């Protein structure tokens, strides 16, 4: 051991932690091994934090200990939130991550300033700009998800020009600081402008686009941590940041594909504000509706049922009633599956977590692509609180704003039942031709109450 300095031993521990982080994500590939994944991550993090406390550069521990206690005090309640609140919790944790990276970047700048090398300033400038905009952007996203801020996109004329000019200003200020490190008074201005850009970036984005935005902010948070690793020459930060950044990036791409949209369209398109005119043109169309008794009878006579849940189900807190329905149908020997669209819910994978929380076995939760190959052989497709992701206009109507978006083909099932409060269009404000098809039955009412009624009807007829 005598050959190693304390710094080298700490670095060696960091290397072990980095390997554990990679293993942690590898084991997350399947629910069977995912538990080991969390454990590997926890051990890696504990080793890294523990080793850091032995860093000989540390002279004062009091404030570190207080900060760790405060952090744990904030983190534990945030780790205990209800599953419906996970998207806003996640947005908030992107904000905390970005805040932390930004604070360190700023501290590092003022320790060095004004003797910052051109190269060092480039790194710090980029790191602080990305960190700052991720911080405010994530706070706004969390506010929208918590419904403190309006979920509807907030837009005005010339918005994109204004937003991009603000970003350009921040970058120009960084460039000036690279050229003239002595203009230290510009640094806080640059931070302020980047903070404003984060607000402008997320404010115009609507609630339905949140899965993409949250993934993109995840990617930025990772990038800011990796850049901080460059600034401080810390490999463990580079590794963790690269892993987090690539994860956010992959999820953003998946979300964009699931909505058939580009990044630029999500960020600058302000989806879901118009389309009122498209609806007015349609003639009076008729829908068929059914009550709980009829719905229960149809479900009871089916062999294969696919349930397609959307965020409306979570809003109505109906997932536990849906579990009862699942149990009642399964008991009768009916094959029940759940068809999960990638953007169902408010963040990637959200719907799976909500259903898993309600004790629905995960092998019944089926991806969009797999469930679509099942739907032509399905007797009943039951749509609960989902709208746009079942809209057949995405396949057939080239003039529809969602044309080309991959959907769950519920219209291919023999019978479609849709639980819905009324005929109002979905989040994107687009009319859904599914409701006017011959095989479609509308079940009007609150999702939780209606599913409860169906379960009661099924129980009542089970002995006859």
């Amino acid at each position, binding site marked *: 051991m005598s050959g190693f300095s304390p710094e080298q031993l700490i670095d060696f521990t960091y290397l072990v932690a980095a390997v554990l982080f990679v293993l942690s994500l590898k084991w997350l590939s399947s629910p069977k091994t995912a538990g080991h994944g969390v454990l590997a991550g926890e051990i890696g993090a504990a080793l890294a934090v523990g080793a850091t406390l032995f860093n000989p*550069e540390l002279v004062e521990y009091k404030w570190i200990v207080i900060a760790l206690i405060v952090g744990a005090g904030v983190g534990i309640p945030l780790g205990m939130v209800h599953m419906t609140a996970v998207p806003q919790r996640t947005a908030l944790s992107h904000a905390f991550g970005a805040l932390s990276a930004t604070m360190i970047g700023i501290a590092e700048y003022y320790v060095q300033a004004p003797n910052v090398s051109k190269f060092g300033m480039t790194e710090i400038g980029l790191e602080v700009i990305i960190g700052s905009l991720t911080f405010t952007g994530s706070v706004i996203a969390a506010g929208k998800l918590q419904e403190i801020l309006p979920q509807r996109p907030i837009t005005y004329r010339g918005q994109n020009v204004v937003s991009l000019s603000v970003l350009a200003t921040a970058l120009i200020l960084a460039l000036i600081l690279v050229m003239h490190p002595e203009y230290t008074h510009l640094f806080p201005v640059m931070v302020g402008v980047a903070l404003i850009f984060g607000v402008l970036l997320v404010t115009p984005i609507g609630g339905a686009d949140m899965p993409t935005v949250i993934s993109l902010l995840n990617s930025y*948070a990772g990038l800011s941590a990796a850049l901080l*690793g460059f600034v401080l020459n810390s490999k463990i930060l580079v590794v963790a940041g690269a*892993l987090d950044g690539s994860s956010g990036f992959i999820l953003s791409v998946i979300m964009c594909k699931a909505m058939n949209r580009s990044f630029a369209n999500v960020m600058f398109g302000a989806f879901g504000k118009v389309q009122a005119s498209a609806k007015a043109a349609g003639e009076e169309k008729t829908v068929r509706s059914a009550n709980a008794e009829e719905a229960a009878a149809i479900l009871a006579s089916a062999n294969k049922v696919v349930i397609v849940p959307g965020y409306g189900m979570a809003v109505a807190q109906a997932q536990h009633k849906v579990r009862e329905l699942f149990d009642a149908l399964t008991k009768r020997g009916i094959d029940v599956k759940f068809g999960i669209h990638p953007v169902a819910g408010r963040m990637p994978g959200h719907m799976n977590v909500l259903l898993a929380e309600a004790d629905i076995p995960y092998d019944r939760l089926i991806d969009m692509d797999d469930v679509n190959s099942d739907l032509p052989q399905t007797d009943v497709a039951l749509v609960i609180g989902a709208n746009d992701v079942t809209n057949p206009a995405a396949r057939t109507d080239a003039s529809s704003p969602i044309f080309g978006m991959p959907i769950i083909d519920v219209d291919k099932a023999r019978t479609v039942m849709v639980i819905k409060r009324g005929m109002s269009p979905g989040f994107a404000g687009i009319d859904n031709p599914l409701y006017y098809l011959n095989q479609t039955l509308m079940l009007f009412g609150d999702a939780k109450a209606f599913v409860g009624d169906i379960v009661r009807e099924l129980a009542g007829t089970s002995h006859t």
Partner: protein
Amino acid sequence: MPSDFISNLFVFILAGFVGFEVIKRVSPLLHTPLMSLTNALDAIVVVAAIIIAGKQQTTLSTVLGVIAVAASFSNMVGGFLITDRMLRMFKTGKSKKS
């Protein structure tokens, strides 16, 4: 260009590739726990924050470092906690009690 930059870039690019290959294989079922887990891993920024907070270079750097320690450590604790809670909810039909 400092030589540190090149070695950091090496690490960044390779870690990015590993991340891409590993995360690509994560089932869509677990995308929410994936995000909370990567969040917790990203909170390793706390090690840099601890050093800034404990070095006592300037008052400003100490204050910023202390804020950073609290913010990132709350992510680390909360991120692992919620990931663990979520994963415990994922059960197969057979392992269910009923």
